[in-house]
C-alpha cells in the first residue's frame, strides 16, 4: 500500500519539484543580476569618488607647480617670508602629510611635515635622490605631473609605523626666470580616502587593487597595502592579493568564483581623467606608474543570507506540496483499493448469482421431474378412479340387483336359478380385486430397487422362460440391436415383467399369414435420452378405434386371441412408476411399434 502511495506521490511530486527548481533558478538569476547591478553601480560610484579625489590631488599638486618662485629660492632663510604666506595654505590641506621641495639633485631643501597626526612642523632635510618617485619627478617637464603608486611611507628607508599609506604628487617648480629649480613633492595621506572607499555603500565586499591584483585596501583586510608589509619581512595572516581569481588581465567584468560574485572595474586614471577636462586652467599631463582596479565581491555568506527567504519559500512550498501530495496520493490509492474491493465483491456476488442461477436451474429441473411424475401419478389416480367406478361398481350393482330380486322372488326354483349368478358376480369381484391388488402394488411402491441393467442380456434371460420359443416350435425371432446403448437404470423385476409381456404379446399377436414373425428390441438415443423401441410384424391394432384404450385395463382388441386385457396396462403402470413413458404406433396387418422413453 505505502509503496503504491509513494509511487503515485513520486509521479505527482516530481514535476512540481522540477518546476520549483526552475523557478528558484530563474528567481535567483534575477535577484543575482539585480545584486550585480547594484554592485556595478557601487563600483562606478567608487570609481567616480576616486577620480574626484585624484583630481583634487592633481589640482593640488599642479597648484604648486604654477607658482613663480624667487630666483635662488631659499625658503628656509632668504625667502621665509615668501613661503610663510603659503604655509597657511599648506596647513589648510588636511590630507597633506609632507610638503617638500627638492633641488635638481634630489636633495630636500624644504620639508614641512605632520607630526603625530596633528600639526605640521618643519622637519629635518633628507637626501631622496635614489627614490624612484624623485627620479620620475626630476624628469618632468612643465605641465607634467607625476602621481606615484600608492605605498606605505618610508622614512630613511624604513616603513614608518603606524603604517601610513601615501600617494606622492610630484611636479616641477620654476623660478621667475622660468628656470626649473627642482620639484615639489607632496605626500598625500590616503588613510582617510581609503577609509571612505571602504565604507560600504553596497552589500558586497570592496577591494581596491593595483593592476597586478595586489590589495591596496579592502574592508575585509586589517591592513592597507598589506603586501608591502609582507615584503618588508613581516608575516601577516591574510592574503593581500586577488591573483587566485581566474582573471589574467584587469578588465571591466563580472564573474562568479567559488560562490562569490565579483564585479571588476578598472580605474585608468589617465584615460578617465580626460573626462574631467574643464576644471583645470591648463590640462596637466599626468604620469602615473599603475592603474587601479575596483573590485566588488558579493560573498557566498551574503548570497546565502540574501537567498535565504527564497530557499525558505522553496522549502515551505515543497513541504506543503509533499504533505498535500502525500495525502492526495493516499486517497487516490485508497479509493483505487476501494474500487478494486468493490469489483472483487461484485465479482463474488456475480459468482454467487451464477451459483444460485445454477441452483435455480437445478431446482427447476427437479421441479420439472417432480411435475412429470406428479402428472403421471395424477393419470394413474384417474385410471384407478375409472377402474373403481366402472369395473368394481359394475358387479356390485349387479349384486344389489340380484339381492333385490331375491327379496321379491317367492318361487324356490327361481331363487335357485339366481344363486349361481351371485357366485359369478362374486368371482368376477374377486378377480377384479386381485388385478387391482397387483396394480396397487405397483402404484404403492415407493422405493423400487433400481439397478444398472444390460437389456440384451435380460432379453436373453426372459426368452429362455418361453420354452416354446426355445424349442423353435413358435415361429418368432427375438432380435436385439443395442449399438447405441447397452444398459439402463431400472427395476430388474419390472423390466423383466415388461419384457415378458412384450415377448408374450409378440407370440400371441403374431401374424400367422407371414412366413416369418419377429420382435425387435432396439436401443436408441433420442434428444440425449435412452429410448427402447419394440417392433413386431404382428397383426397390429386399429389405433383409430382403440388408440385411447391400448393401455387400459380389461381392454382387448382381438376377439380370437385369449387375453384378459391386463398385460399392457401393467407394462404402462410399471414404466410410469419409474418415470418412463410408453407410446404406441401400429397399422393393422403390418405390425406394432412401442416406444419407451426412459
Amino acid at each position: 500500500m505505502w509503496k503504491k502511495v509513494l509511487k503515485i506521490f513520486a509521479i505527482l511530486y516530481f514535476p512540481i519539484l522540477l518546476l520549483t527548481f526552475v523557478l528558484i533558478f530563474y528567481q535567483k538569476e534575477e535577484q543575482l543580476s539585480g545584486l550585480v547591478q547594484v554592485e556595478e553601480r557601487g563600483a562606478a560610484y567608487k570609481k567616480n569618488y576616486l577620480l574626484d579625489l585624484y583630481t583634487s590631488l592633481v589640482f593640488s599638486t599642479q597648484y604648486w607647480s604654477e607658482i613663480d618662485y624667487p630666483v635662488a629660492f631659499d625658503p628656509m632663510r632668504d625667502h621665509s617670508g615668501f613661503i610663510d604666506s603659503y604655509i597657511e595654505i599648506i596647513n589648510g590641506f588636511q590630507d597633506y602629510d609632507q610638503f617638500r621641495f627638492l633641488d635638481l639633485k634630489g636633495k630636500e631643501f624644504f620639508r614641512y611635515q605632520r607630526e603625530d597626526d596633528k600639526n605640521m612642523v618643519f622637519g629635518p632635510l633628507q637626501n631622496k635622490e635614489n627614490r624612484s618617485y624623485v627620479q620620475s619627478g626630476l624628469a618632468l617637464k612643465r605641465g607634467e605631473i607625476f602621481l606615484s603608486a600608492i605605498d606605505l611611507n618610508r622614512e630613511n628607508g624604513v616603513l614608518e609605523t603606524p603604517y601610513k599609506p601615501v600617494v606622492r604628487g610630484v611636479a616641477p617648480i620654476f623660478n621667475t626666470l622660468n628656470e626649473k629649480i627642482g620639484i615639489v613633492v607632496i605626500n598625500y595621506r590616503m588613510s582617510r580616502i581609503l577609509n571612505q572607499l571602504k565604507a560600504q555603500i553596497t552589500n558586497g565586499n570592496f577591494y581596491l587593487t593595483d593592476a597586478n591584483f595586489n590589495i591596496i585596501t579592502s574592508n575585509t583586510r586589517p591592513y592597507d597595502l598589506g603586501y608591502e608589509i609582507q615584503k618588508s619581512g613581516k608575516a601577516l595572516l591574510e592574503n593581500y592579493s586577488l591573483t587566485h581569481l581566474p582573471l589574467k588581465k584587469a578588465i571591466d567584468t563580472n564573474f562568479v568564483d567559488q560562490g562569490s560574485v565579483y564585479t571588476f572595474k578598472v580605474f585608468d586614471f589617465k584615460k578617465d581623467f580626460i573626462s574631467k577636462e574643464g576644471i583645470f586652467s591648463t590640462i596637466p599631463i599626468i604620469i602615473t606608474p599603475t592603474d587601479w582596479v575596483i573590485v566588488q565581491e558579493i560573498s557566498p555568506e551574503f548570497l546565502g543570507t540574501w537567498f535565504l527567504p527564497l530557499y525558505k519559500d522553496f522549502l515551505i512550498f515543497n513541504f506543503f506540496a509533499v504533505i498535500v501530495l502525500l495525502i492526495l496520493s493516499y486517497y487516490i490509492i485508497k479509493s483505487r483499493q476501494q474500487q478494486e474491493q468493490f469489483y472483487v465483491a461484485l465479482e463474488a456476488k456475480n459468482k454467487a448469482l451464477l451459483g444460485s442461477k445454477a441452483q435455480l436451474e437445478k431446482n427447476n429441473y427437479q421441479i420439472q421431474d417432480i411435475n412429470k411424475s406428479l402428472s403421471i401419478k395424477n393419470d394413474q389416480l384417474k385410471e384407478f378412479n375409472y377402474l373403481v367406478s366402472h369395473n368394481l361398481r359394475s358387479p356390485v350393482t349387479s349384486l344389489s340387483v340380484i339381492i333385490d330380486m331375491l327379496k321379491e322372488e317367492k318361487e324356490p326354483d327361481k331363487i335357485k336359478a339366481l344363486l349361481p349368478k351371485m357366485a359369478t358376480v362374486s368371482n368376477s369381484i374377486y378377480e377384479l380385486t386381485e388385478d387391482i391388488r397387483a396394480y396397487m402394488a405397483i402404484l404403492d411402491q415407493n422405493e423400487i430397487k433400481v439397478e444398472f441393467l444390460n437389456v440384451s442380456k435380460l432379453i436373453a434371460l426372459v426368452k429362455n422362460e418361453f420354452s416354446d420359443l426355445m424349442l423353435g416350435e413358435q415361429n418368432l425371432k427375438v432380435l436385439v440391436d443395442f449399438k447405441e446403448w447397452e444398459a439402463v437404470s431400472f427395476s430388474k423385476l419390472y423390466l423383466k415383467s415388461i419384457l415378458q409381456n412384450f415377448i408374450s404379446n409378440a407370440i400371441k399377436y403374431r401374424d400367422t399369414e407371414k412366413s416369418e414373425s419377429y420382435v425387435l428390441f432396439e436401443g436408441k438415443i433420442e434428444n440425449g435420452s435412452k429410448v427402447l423401441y419394440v417392433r413386431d410384424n404382428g397383426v397390429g391394432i386399429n389405433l383409430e378405434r382403440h388408440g385411447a384404450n391400448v393401455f387400459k385395463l380389461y381392454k382387448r382388441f382381438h376377439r380370437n386371441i385369449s387375453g384378459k386385457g391386463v398385460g399392457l396396462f401393467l407394462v404402462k403402470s410399471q414404466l410410469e412408476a419409474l418415470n418412463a413413458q410408453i407410446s404406441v404406433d401400429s397399422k393393422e396387418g403390418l405390425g406394432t411399434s412401442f416406444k419407451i422413453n426412459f
Partner: protein
Amino acid sequence: MKKGNILLVDDDEIYLYLVKKILSKISERIAISSFTDGEQAINFITNQTEVHQEVPEVILLDVNMPFLDGWGFLVEFKKLKPKLEKSIRIYLVTSSALPSDKQKAKEFQELTGYFVKPITEDNLKNILTEVYETNF
C-alpha cells in the same frame, strides 16, 4: 300394440341376464337381443342395414367394454347413422357416476338418455313408455 325390439350391449353377463329378466317381466312382447361388446353390436347393425333387415328401436349401451367400448360404438354409429332407415334411440348405461363421463356423453347427439347402473325396473318402464308411447 306394436312389438318392441331392444338391443342390450354390455360385457357383463349378469347385467344382461338381469335386464333381460326385468324386461321380460315388464312385457312379453319385447324382442330382446344382446352383444357383449360394441364391435359385435356395430357389425350387427351395419349388416342389418345393408340387407335392409330390422334394426332395434332402442339400444342400452354400456361404456366399459372390450374390443370396442361405448364411446367407440358411438363414433362408429355416427358414421353409420345416415344409412339408417329409421331412428334408433340409444341410452348410455354406465356403472360410473363420473362427471367426466357425463360431460363426454353430452357431446354425442346420438344419445337419447344417460343412466347410472343399477338400471331399475322403473327406469326401463320409462324408457319403453317414451319410445313406444304406451304405458307399461
